[in-house]
């Protein structure tokens, strides 16, 4: 009996320790933990990097900038080395002191970047650059021309009654910006309470047309392909993806109110620069070679102007068609900015979502 008892206890203890040890997946030498979007650390991009530097990449994928912020603020460099938030979230991390400034001297490729990405307002604080711009794009308004053959060049088309229950809009503050531009707000990133209320009313008026708030490019594509919706606001990836699936009647609307622009940047979580793999990664992903690979993979445009030269002809043609690589167009875009009253925006956005559509 005594033996059995001891053996039983010992077995239990060993089992427990084993499971704990196995779960405590230690940050191995030369490993890099990324908190990022799917597609930004695909094997196509990561494999050459690992081969060159020996650094193993361990990505964790997120679905929203909210998640990046929450997790970065929560866990810090003990868990994550690099994050890739979008331009409306970057300043939160910078102001919270959760990220480190970039040592530009270690990243020669930055010189080849498009002018808008040289020192964008959403990455600079006290003359320090806090992130390396990466993928970017303009938000698109697309509609099935069979349903709306006479689409005006304005976001107002979204409120068209023919679109009742047929739109997919992004579950993101961008949709709030769209409505704000529609009602003529000048600085959509710094709205007054009154402007916010009006935006809210406009969105509530839009709700009957919305069938689904989408949360990923793939979802938008599916919603369109499975004929659940006939259009909405979306990303280049979804548009090019749909065109590739011969959704020929899908046409882009170029609104006179302007379009939002998103830009992701790699940021170093405070304390992580001690990890030698961090700058190796930043150097790699700022290179035109890697950005061309990433572009091939994701369909996005990337910040290094030279990466366009390395694209395959079709990919280049597509980006040209979309106007992404044109510095003039880039300047006309309403790039997302840090929103100081983010909480108020979010509250309005949640109110809109909670409102029952008629």
């Amino acid at each position, binding site marked *: 009996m005594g033996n059995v*008892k001891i053996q039983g206890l010992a077995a239990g203890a060993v*089992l*427990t320790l084993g*499971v*704990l040890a*196995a*779960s*405590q*997946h230690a*940050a191995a030498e030369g490993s890099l*933990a990324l908190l990022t979007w*799917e*597609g930004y650390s695909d094997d196509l991009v990561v494999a050459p990097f690992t081969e060159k530097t020996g650094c193993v990449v*361990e990505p*964790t*994928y997120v*679905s929203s900038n909210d998640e990046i912020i*929450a*997790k970065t*603020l*929560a*866990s*810090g460099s*003990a*868990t*994550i080395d690099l994050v890739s938030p979008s331009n409306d979230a970057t300043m939160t991390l910078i102001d919270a002191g959760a990220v480190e400034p970039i040592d530009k001297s270690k990243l020669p490729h930055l010189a080849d970047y498009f002018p808008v990405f040289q020192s964008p307002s959403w990455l600079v604080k006290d003359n320090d650059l806090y992130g390396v711009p990466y993928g970017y794009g303009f938000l698109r308004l697309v509609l099935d021309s069979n349903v709306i053959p006479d689409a005006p060049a304005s976001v107002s088309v979204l409120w068209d009654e023919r679109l009742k229950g047929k739109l997919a809009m992004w579950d993101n503050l961008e949709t709030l910006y769209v409505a704000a531009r529609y009602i003529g707000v000048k600085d959509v990133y710094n709205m007054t309470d009154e402007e916010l209320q009006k935006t809210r009313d406009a969105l509530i008026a839009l709700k009957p047309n919305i069938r689904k708030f989408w*949360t*990923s*490019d*793939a*979802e938008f594509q*599916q919603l369109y392909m*499975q004929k659940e919706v006939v259009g909405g606001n979306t990303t280049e990836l979804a548009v090019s993806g749909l065109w590739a699936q011969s959704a020929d009647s899908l046409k882009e609307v170029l609104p006179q109110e302007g379009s939002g622009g998103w830009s992701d940047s790699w940021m170093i979580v405070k304390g992580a620069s001690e990890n030698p793999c961090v700058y190796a990664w930043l150097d790699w992903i700022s290179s035109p070679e890697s950005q061309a690979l990433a572009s091939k993979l994701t369909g996005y445009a990337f910040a290094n102007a030279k990466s366009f030269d390395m694209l395959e002809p079709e990919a280049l043609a597509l980006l040209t068609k979309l106007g992404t690589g044109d510095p003039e167009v880039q300047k006309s875009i309403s790039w997302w900015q840090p929103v100081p009253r983010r909480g108020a925006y979010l509250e309005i956005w949640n109110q809109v979502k909670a409102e029952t559509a008629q």
Partner: protein
Amino acid sequence: MTRLGSPYLIWSVAGAIMLFLYLPILVIIVFSFNEGRNAGLPFTGFTLSWYEAALSNRQIVRAIWNSVLVAGGTILIAVPIGLMAAIAMDRFSFPGKDMFRRLVLLPLVLPGIITGISLLNFYVMLKVPLSLTTIMLGQGTALICITVTEVFARLQQLGRSQYEAAYDLGASEFEIFVKVTLPNIKTALIGSTLIILSLSLDEIAVTFLLTGRDNTLPMVLWSILRREATPLVNVAGTVMIALTLVLVTIGLRLSRGNSGRH
């Protein structure tokens, strides 16, 4: 034969409900063989290539392993602690017992996300880095109540006489536990382990905020679904059913082999 009503009626209603429970499972399995790139319709043809893709996908295989690991850890936390709480609640009266009981059940009733936030705040304050262990601790805490309710119900059915007889014969607490209590609550323990296993493998709400570098399968599936909903997710679902079925069958075999009864 004289029960509530015709067995044909009952079984056709129950059968229809079981069909409802299995319809999506059927869809998952069928569409895991879909040749097209879509997890849903249209079904374009039969292929095994998604199985090949899934099993050669490091991320998925790793996540399945992580999930099994987390489930194992969760069971190692939730079952012993839940067992102890159940025995204490069955056998002794102590001040604040009702409150204790409510506290034990709270994580079951609380949205997982709230448990998640509270634990996240806790880890942040203690500067504990997020990892599979933090997930395990979170899930373990949340699922203790499963063991407590299952085992407590069984102990209440058993009554006190066996325990008292053993106590009277001079058995130590440990001997009573091993020789009297354990054999009687074995099936309840197995049942709760099974449920915890199932719940842990599929846990999202608590896990969502506590994930560090390593992802569990549901987290990876979610990211795959966001990127492109390929039949890969159906393959993962099918594999999980098969894998769990194997685990459970082995588990039940082993436990039956030991008991001799039943």
